[in-house]
């Protein structure tokens, strides 16, 4: 499979995962969540992780975010350890549940990381205004999360993740709970935001069309133990140039088929019409 990255020569990778295993010790014994993971993400690149639930997508993202530590292997973010990168706030993260603080307004939620890192009040207000506009929530700065729709809450979470202008955005099924129409809209918005900020994105999803539409490359994972089954490069042009009409394009469907084949194993079984799970 084609895994050549179109990064400027000599640039430090946004993410480098080398020989990573992750074993959880549970009461019922050891669970191998990830096995032999190698992955590179170039600066500005959009990479999706896709696979059936339980294949370790969230675990891999959490390792990159230094929310968990690998059992073996190393994770580097912009040339430093994932741990140092977290302390240096080199990445922003958005979770499946938006994880907003219900007692804070939209502006208060977005300001949280800035506040924690001691940014001054005036500077903070200016940055929050910028971010609120970036995610298109201009009229809702003083609204509380419980008054927002799911899609709007996710936009707040994305704005919060972007607060420190990170060059890497980590997202774990951020649109998983949204209806199809809101979801497609959010995908386009995300591509616009990624283009505007120039951030690399590692995006977890279990939707094939979503992965295809958003990504430069789609990393296909398989379960028990979680491995990378293949990496499919999306030959659909620059992500920044993609628009909704791409969803009806023949090339788009070809890429969907390519990812599906990588997910389900050999294309041969498909040709024979054999049901694959």
């Amino acid at each position, binding site marked *: 499979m084609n895994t050549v990255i179109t990064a400027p020569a000599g640039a430090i990778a946004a993410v480098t995962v080398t020989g990573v295993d992750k074993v959880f010790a549970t009461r019922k014994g050891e669970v191998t969540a990830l096995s032999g993971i190698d992955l590179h993400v170039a600066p500005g690149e959009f990479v999706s992780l896709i696979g059936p639930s339980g294949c370790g997508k969230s675990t891999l993202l*959490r390792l990159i*975010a*230094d*929310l968990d530590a690998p059992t073996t292997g190393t994770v580097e973010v912009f040339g430093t350890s994932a741990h140092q990168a*977290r*302390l240096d*706030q080199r*990445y922003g*993260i958005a*979770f499946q*549940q938006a*994880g907003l*603080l*219900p*007692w804070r307004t939209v502006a208060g939620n977005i300001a*949280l*990381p800035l506040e*924690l*890192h001691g940014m001054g009040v005036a500077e903070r207000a200016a940055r929050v205004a910028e971010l609120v506009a970036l995610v298109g929530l201009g009229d809702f700065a003083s609204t*509380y999360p*419980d008054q927002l729709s799911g899609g709007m809450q996710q936009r707040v979470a994305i704005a919060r993740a972007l607060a420190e202008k990170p060059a890497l955005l980590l997202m774990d099924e951020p649109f998983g709970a949204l209806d199809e129409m809101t979801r497609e809209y959010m995908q386009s918005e995300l591509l616009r935001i990624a283009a505007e900020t120039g951030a690399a994105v590692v995006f977890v999803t279990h939707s094939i069309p979503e992965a295809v539409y958003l990504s430069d490359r789609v990393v296909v994972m398989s379960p028990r133990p979680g491995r990378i089954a293949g990496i499919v490069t999306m030959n659909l042009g620059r992500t920044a140039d993609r628009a909704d009409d791409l969803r009806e394009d023949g090339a788009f469907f070809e890429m969907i088929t390519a990812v599906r084949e990588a997910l389900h194993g050999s294309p041969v079984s498909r040709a024979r019409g054999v049901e694959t799970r």
Partner: protein
Amino acid sequence: MSGSAAVERAPSGAERVLAPIVLGVVVVAVWQLLAGSGLVEAYLLPSPAAIGDEIVAFAPSMLSAGALTGLNALIGLIVGSLVGIALALAASAARLVDGMLAPVVAALAVVPIVALAPVLNTAFGADAQTGRQLIAALAAFVPVFINTARGLRQTLPVHRDLMRACAATPGQAMRVITLRTAAPFTFTGIRLASSLAVISALVAEYFGGPRGGLGGLISTSAASSAYPRAWAYVVAAIILGLAFYLVALGLERLVSRRR
């Protein structure tokens, strides 16, 4: 929302206020008729009018008695709540402390706190309010401790992850997430504690110590067969308890609005 009107309509604000008032007026009217009819002996059930007369006649004494008992209850509530919050924090920080405190709190929760009144009254001397305040504090401590300890365990995993992703210090995570998540629980505890503090401060006065509180006056009035006056002080005690409860309820509502 106001669509299917007749079927399941929430009661309006006016209805919610009016209904109990109407019920209260009816009850008082029936009571007055019953007391005036001679069917019930006056010492068993003084008429509302007689009680009302006593309230007017003894208004200054009621105010000062209410202030005295109220201050004891307030000091007890504040001290008990602060100790409850502090110990709940200690218990959540160290499992060992949690294990040590759990049986003590369980014991405190089942001992009728007022049973300690004679002991504490004697221990702190006959002319001190300290014993009463301590009893109110003990009564207030239990619900505040239990609810705060529960609240400190409610932090969402996604919020913990967020704090870690933001490289927040433990102190920041405590302030921004843990304490704020626990606050509505703590204030529920304080609401429960508010009534207990008033009742305890009041009942503690039945067991000696300085005169002048509502509890003391209820017992002396009853002892001298001044039943309407005793009931008048009971009314004052109800109002005092209600005041504590409503203020605590307001605080709880304020903190729980967004959670």
